[in-house]
């Protein structure tokens, strides 16, 4: 319990740090947000009154304190561009991104498990070496390029799936595959390494000696122990998955948070940028907290202090 509270406090401090950094960055924007809101034809008096209305004339730390106070009340301000509350915009865009991220994670874990299980017993053979080169190649390919290739072949040439946009499940398949493949290959290599180490342990030999088949030994006895460290990596990797989300959403015209953040930066829409970055940081911190706690539940050797 004390461990849990400790982790929770650290998570809050990290979140506070993230709000401070994003606020500081945005505060330094050379463009004038008041002018952006007012539009190109506004006169100086209008701009000045908007600046006062948005409290842009106050010192940085006062603006930050006010911002933080509003965030605690669930108020992330209004978009400079559309005047809508940022919270509403984020809530509207979140489901699409959550769906894509979850599907991508699922693909990644499936590829990781399958890849690790297949290659580990073959360690040292040519199949294993080919898989290694192949996975390095996948890790080296830009995700947006993979997305375009998938769109060109699967969507355009073979006409198997729609060319981007959101809708039914068929729209989700390509973006999820493209998003999850990179992480999946990475998980597969890690699981491979862990499995190879675990397969040399005494209890594996004991399981084999008791008459378990080779497949059962690997899939049941070895996998349970080899996949534990993977859990932490999945948590740590979540931030890079969100990176992929931004690019994947752009390629596939997926109406989610990634595209929203990018458009907001181009429009100098400060509250939307802050909201998106804050939300993604919350997601990352929450994922890592969950993984940490889960890890201690799954592995009885690490007691929840």
């Amino acid at each position, binding site marked *: 319990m004390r461990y849990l509270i400790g982790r929770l406090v650290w998570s809050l401090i990290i979140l506070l740090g993230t709000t401070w950094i994003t606020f500081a960055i945005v505060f330094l924007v050379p463009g004038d947000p008041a002018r952006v809101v007012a539009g190109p034809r506004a006169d100086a008096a209008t701009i000045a009154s908007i600046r006062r209305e948005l409290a842009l004339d106050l010192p940085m730390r006062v603006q930050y304190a006010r911002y933080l106070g509003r965030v605690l009340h669930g108020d992330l301000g209004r978009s400079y561009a559309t005047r809508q509350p940022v919270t509403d915009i984020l809530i509207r865009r979140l489901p699409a991104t959550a769906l894509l991220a979850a599907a991508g994670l699922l693909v990644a874990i499936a590829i990781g498990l399958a890849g690790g299980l297949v290659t580990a017993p073959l360690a040292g053979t040519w199949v294993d070496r080919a898989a290694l080169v192949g996975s390095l190649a996948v890790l080296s390919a830009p995700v947006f390029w993979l997305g375009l290739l998938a769109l060109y072949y699967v969507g355009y040439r073979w006409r198997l799936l729609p060319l981007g946009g959101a809708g039914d499940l068929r729209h989700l398949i390509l973006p999820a595959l493209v998003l999850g493949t990179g992480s999946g290959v990475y998980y597969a290599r890690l699981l491979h390494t862990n499995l190879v180490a675990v397969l040399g342990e005494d209890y594996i030999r004991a399981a084999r000696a008791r008459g378990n088949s080779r497949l059962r030994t690997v899939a049941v006895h070895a996998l349970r122990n080899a996949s534990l460290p993977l859990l932490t990596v999945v948590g740590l990797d979540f931030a890079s998955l*969100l990176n992929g989300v931004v690019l994947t959403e752009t390629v596939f015209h997926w109406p989610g948070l990634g595209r929203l953040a990018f458009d907001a930066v181009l429009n100098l829409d400060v509250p939307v940028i802050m909201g998106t970055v804050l939300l993604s940081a919350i997601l990352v911190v929450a994922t890592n907290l969950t993984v940490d706690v889960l890890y201690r539940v799954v592995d009885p050797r690490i007691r929840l202090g």
Partner: protein
Amino acid sequence: MGALLVLVAIVGPSAAPFDPAAAVAPQLAEPMPPAAPFYLGTDDLGRDVLSRLLCGARISLLVGAVAMVVTMVIGTAIGIAAGYFGGVVDVVLMRATDVMLAFPGLLLAVALVAVLRPSVWTIFVVIGLVSWTGVARVIRSEVLSLRERDFVLAARALGARDRRTLWRHVLPNVLPTIVVIAALSTSGTILLDAGLSFLGIGVPPPTPTWGRMIQEATSYYRAAPWLMLFPGAALLYAVLTFNFIAYGLLGGTRAPSA
């Protein structure tokens, strides 16, 4: 692999058959598929893809290399400081690292570039600023174990100051690790730069980067797939080269974490 990459980066622009910024195709309105003398085709503005690819090599690799150096300098300095001094310094620096790790790097980079206005220098600094965290963590754990080793303790017992101990005893011993992470992080910085270019905020035009060539090709991916195919393949080749170098240095024992 690496040799070819370096060769292209050095002689690339002068080996380009055409001016990469000029409309050289006989037919300007739409892209032409690969055919002599335009071996990789031409784009929607009638520019030669091969020439642009060769010129893009230098800038793409330069950004990757310089951003890697920035990443390594920040990461190594923070990692060594946290690991060597320990205590409060360690706690503060590692919590700062955790804060940075909570950001999806690309989003943060997008925000930073928007603030600082795109230029080659901005890209160098921004990529360095968002990708040092992994380096700092690895170097820190390395230094933590070095700090307790006899030769470091001996140096300090003999009255060596921190600066001397760090330069003469600690740094040389983390150097092998630094070299491996440097290769890995080069592949990371090249990909991040390509991602920024693809979002339209990388190195500004008219410099042809591989990432922006792909971005410009997105509207033509159905009619003219060669426009995105070749720059993507070039990126893949460059990043793969650095991953192979890192993997080779590791002796093939650990999984890559690019």
